[in-house]
């Protein structure tokens, strides 16, 4: 993969995408756990239709920031804005309904449900059947159920899950297939913003490269804006239009991949000080 050797201009709509208005914005957010500042006064902008990477050493606060963006944590200070909407205090399921979906660093599928059912859960916020609709099952509920199932199967095919394992329990799937199902589950929420927490963890270089291509395809075909936590620099440099670097909860650098990778503070954060 040549992306590792030198700065390769990102494919797709190039830096101009960065001028697009931000769809998701964290404004000076801070998260404290007791005395620990896991995230300290960090601002991040996600321009529409862009791919932005969030990098940093372990414990830098990347996943904490993710959890604030998706509503699992409430920021101690600061604001999170989706489009024109302040979602700082919104519940996670509501935020999903607004169009933010995510995957998890350590895959969190519903093990006792089939691959298709897992993806159907992703569509939950877009469905309407309530208690009485579920019991009486009028025609519109039947249709909704049928459409959701069909959509789930389409999405599983889209992310490349072999058809033979569609109705297998998620816990029985191979690691790679579980990653695929998780991605399909997030896409089933019909998001406008997709947050991927270390999607290439545990993948070999070839699989990572394939996923990198797939992310660009996703962005273009599903009209997505993608925020990515990633450790694999090949992937980060290859796919992102902008990189934000966190260290000890603080933002230490931000910009185009080629610029960020030569930033002395970033090198210091990763490799230690050169004396």
């Amino acid at each position, binding site marked *: 993969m040549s992306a590792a050797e030198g700065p390769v201009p990102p494919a797709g709509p190039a830096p101009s995408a960065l001028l697009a208005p931000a769809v998701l914005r964290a404004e000076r957010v801070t998260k404290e756990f007791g005395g620990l500042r896991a995230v300290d006064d960090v601002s991040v902008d996600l321009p529409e239709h862009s791919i932005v990477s969030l990098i940093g050493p372990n414990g830098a606060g990347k996943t904490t920031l993710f959890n604030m963006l998706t509503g699992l944590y409430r920021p101690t200070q600061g604001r999170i804005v989706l489009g024109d909407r302040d979602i700082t205090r919104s519940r996670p399921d509501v935020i999903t309904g607004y169009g933010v979906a995510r995957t998890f660093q350590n895959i969190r599928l519903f*093990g006792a449900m089939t691959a298709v059912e897992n993806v159907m*859960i992703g569509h939950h916020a877009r469905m309407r059947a309530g208690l009485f609709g579920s019991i009486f099952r009028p025609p519109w509920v039947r249709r909704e159920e049928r459409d959701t199932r069909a959509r789930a199967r389409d999405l599983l095919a889209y992310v490349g899950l072999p058809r033979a394992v569609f109705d297998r329990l998620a816990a029985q799937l191979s690691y790679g297939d579980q990653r*695929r199902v998780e991605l399909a589950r997030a896409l089933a929420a019909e998001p406008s913003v997709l947050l991927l927490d270390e999607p290439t963890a545990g993948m070999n270089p070839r699989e990572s490269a394939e996923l990198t291509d797939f992310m660009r395809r996703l962005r273009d075909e599903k009209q997505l804006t993608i925020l990515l936590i990633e450790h694999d620099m090949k992937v980060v440099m290859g796919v992102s239009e902008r990189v934000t670097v966190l260290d000890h909860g603080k933002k230490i650098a931000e910009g185009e991949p080629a610029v960020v990778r030569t930033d002395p503070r970033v090198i210091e954060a990763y490799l230690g000080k050169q004396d």
Partner: protein
Amino acid sequence: MSGFLARLRQLQAAVVKRLPRRWNRALAGALIVIGIVLPFFFPPNNGFMNATIIAVAFAVMSLGLNIVVGFAGLLDLGYVAFYALGAYSLGWFGSGFFFRLHVHVLVSPTAPVLGVHLNFVLILIAAALICAAAGILIGLPTLRLRGDYIAIVTLAFGEIIATVAVNGQSVPVGGGMTLTAGNLGISAVDPPYFPGSGSFSLLNLRPWYWLIFGILLLVLFVNLRLRDSRLGRAWVALREDEVAAVSMGIPLVKTKLLAYSVGAAFGGMAGAFFGTYYTEVNASQFAFGFSIFILAMVIIGGIGSIWGALVGGLVLGYINNYLIPDVLNDLPSKFGLHFQLIQVEFGIFGFLLVIMMVLRPQGLIPERRRQLELTAQIAAEDAQLAEAPTGEVTVILPPGEGAA
């Protein structure tokens, strides 16, 4: 000729393919018919008929608790509270207990003048609504809790309701009336009345049976519909992984409270039935052991499985009300022992539970998911042991990788 044979073969394949579905329908229909005509094979007021009615009512409760414990994975140890509230709904709205009021809605013309007398169907609805509200009340403080802590809070709730039932006789509600009759019991409750139906008396138990069988069918229908629905999936997802579930757009509070209230409503309906069937609503009926008894039905049947909860309720109901008191009660004396089997009832249930956990921990009729899970785990472990060296290669490069 050969074309005709081929077509015949196609037809046969199509029929075979369609059979299971039809068979299920036919089987369900046959079971319902058997359920309806069952009472004609027994004397109308013998011990077996009585045991059957109680067993079916237990099955209704077991199906209700299964929604909370089995579907949503919330360990509820206070289910007796809904038995109590359902029975009191009957006592309040179907007897002369509130003697200052004179309310009659669609009841037998021979109903007493004093008190509130609503039609049994209305009481069933009232019991379901009251218990649904109480289910939400009990659910609220447990929302942030998990596992054992939910059990503790619900257990306390069951005890609170039981204590209120006992002490309610000193709680005035105006006009010299009290909230409950405590251990004296609210008696002379109305038997169910439907225009044109036979009379509900203890000399002929058949109408009682048909009534509770109808309630069972209703509860079963709701259970089956909910299991394969958006809501049922959401319950299972919350049980499996709460964080992932809310991140996928499932509202935690609403979904959990719905599980509590639907499960409670069924308990309340069975409670109202027990109230009128036992002809009394007495605070001493609502002991903690009852919650455990219903939970044991769910566990023995197979947690999360609808047919399991049904069978578990029937089996324990029959053992408790027929096998031990009517059939095997004299067994010890035949061996020259001086006690009756009914005296060691709880010992027998404990023993049964232990045997069950050793021999068949997944329950009599395990839920499909859990069954798959168990067998899949074993198969996966076997596969790992058998082909560890080559197995790794397939994990890293699953077939069809390039197609992605």
